[in-house]
């Protein structure tokens, strides 16, 4: 067994495929004394849905925030469509075709549904750049209908919506864009079974269209096996497993997590009772 202080038993090195839209190599990130990511290697192929798994605090959300440009890595490289990619802002990530659903949704309670849908991509008039609210309302309505999300009124503030509806708006915001790489951080978190199924249907539909590639953080392994082509699992700040979903099972994924849990228990035990 590996020394728990040095992380998981195995670390997946840089891998790639010819049709990668995104490659992440040797990404590391520390927050003060805490190492969030040690050495992350990841790739995303065109039209693929990649499930990103890992325990709470494993660094999944940090990785998402680095890829989208909200945070900068301490070291490592990223490539989008084979070109070097070092975003200094979310805008730069967006310019390269990356849109994100954050775990906290990043919705603005005070703004209406349609202003949230178009936040940072507002439609404006020319030459005086006033907001083209009517156009945004029309497009928002069309986009929500197309996605199949039922929001009765789009001119109310999102504070008035249910948790599931808010989540749906956050997902719709990424889908309703020109992005070809979508990062979804727990898109089903606040949703009931019915709403969750709707989002998974949407992901399946996007996959069939083949235009976008998706990295999705999920906790439910049944959802992972249903929706994803491949899974990458983060343990202790590094990718410890990278497998097509066809070659894995709920049992295997559970076993890995159980083993990690045992390892952590043992490490904690050893710390409390050092061997003589």
């Amino acid at each position, binding site marked *: 067994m590996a020394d728990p202080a040095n992380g998981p038993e195995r670390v997946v090195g840089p891998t790639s495929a010819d049709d990668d839209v995104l490659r992440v190599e040797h990404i590391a990130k520390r927050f003060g004394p805490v190492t969030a990511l040690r050495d992350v290697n990841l790739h995303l192929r065109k039209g693929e849905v990649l499930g990103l798994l890992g325990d709470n605090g494993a660094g999944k959300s940090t990785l998402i925030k680095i890829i989208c440009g909200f945070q900068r890595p301490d070291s490592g490289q990223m490539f989008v469509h084979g070109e070097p990619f070092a975003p200094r*802002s979310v805008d730069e990530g967006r310019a390269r075709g990356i849109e994100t659903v*954050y775990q906290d949704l990043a919705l603005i*309670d*005070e703004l209406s549904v349609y202003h949230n849908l178009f*936040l*940072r991509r*507002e439609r404006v008039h020319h030459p005086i750049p006033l907001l083209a609210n009517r156009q945004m309302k029309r497009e928002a309505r069309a986009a929500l209908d197309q996605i199949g999300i039922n929001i009765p009124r789009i001119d109310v503030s999102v504070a*008035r919506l249910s948790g599931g509806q808010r989540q749906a708006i956050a997902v719709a915001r990424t889908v309703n864009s020109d992005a070809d790489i979508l990062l979804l951080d727990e898109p089903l978190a606040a949703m009931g079974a019915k709403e969750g199924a709707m989002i998974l249907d949407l992901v399946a539909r996007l996959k069939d269209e083949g235009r976008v590639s998706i990295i999705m953080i999920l906790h439910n392994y049944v959802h992972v096996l249903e929706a994803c082509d491949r899974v990458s699992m983060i343990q202790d700040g590094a990718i410890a497993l990278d497998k097509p979903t066809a070659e894995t099972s709920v049992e295997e994924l559970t076993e890995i997590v159980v083993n990690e849990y045992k390892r952590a228990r043992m490490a904690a035990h050893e710390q409390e009772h050092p061997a003589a």
Partner: protein
Amino acid sequence: MLERALSLREGSIIVVTILTAIYFSANTSSFFTSANFKTLLPYFAPLAILGAGEVFVMILGEIDLSIGAMYLFAPFVFYKLSTAGIPLVPCVILALLCCMVVGLVNGFFTAVVGISSFVTTLGMLFTFEGLALIISHGQPVATPGAEVHQTTHQVTHVVNGVHVTLPETVNHISTFAKVFGGGTYSELIWAVAIVIFLQVVLTFTRWGLYTVSIGSNKLGAGEAGVRVRLVMIRNFMLCALLAGFVGILEAVRAQSVQPDPAGANEILFLAIASAVIGGTLLAGGSGTVVGALIGALFLGILKDGLVLQGVNANYLLFYTGLAIILAASVGVYVSRARRGRGSG
């Protein structure tokens, strides 16, 4: 929806202001006169402009206390530049640029360094009020360009069929003074123009949308790609600019620049009161520029009406204070009703 939300947010204070005006009109014969309206103007127009800038900072969930210092400091800079031989209008522009640099520093310490804006701008308030005293040596000066020229004309009247010629004195002020605060309606026109412009910016532009976004959910706005620091710094610069501008307008109107930090501090707090009474939340995320103008008008009517009624001046602050608390309570109630079940 926008119009409805707007009317709701300012609705309560509009009603209160109208009721107050009706009350004073009914109780004092001299309230509802044009002469009285003119005495009201210099009280509320400066507050409306200051309040408009403060609203842009308060919606962010921040506060700018340094507007008192900008109000005091800008006219002295204007004076110094003018005595150095620079023409009047460039002096105004340069003085206002100085204020914007102060706003930039406020914004930098708040948005980038992360010091609370209350502390940052409190420090800047004392620093620049002190600087105003230093550069003025604590002495009032005559405002450049605001001098009143008197000319005497021989005017012939016909009295009972007899031509009588008498000398009459006429006061003249320069065009510069008429435009920048000296004209009777100059401050009112500036206030209305600035308030309308900034309300449009707040409601119908990306700048306004991002300002609300940052006040409502700073992290989320950043995650969505809003350049939080840039917008915050910009709003602090706007607020400082307007405060400096009001300082110059008032100096031109009064024809002198007074080194009076106590007066400036009172203006500062009344401006914040105008914004709060108008329905802008100190907690951020919500506010209206038009509301600040109505809040300023309310404070003006209250003061003016009480004075006309012969109420002891000692009661003025007392009533103003009660009005602020009442208006803020109504604002919170209305905002809760508007947001429905809250942030969930």
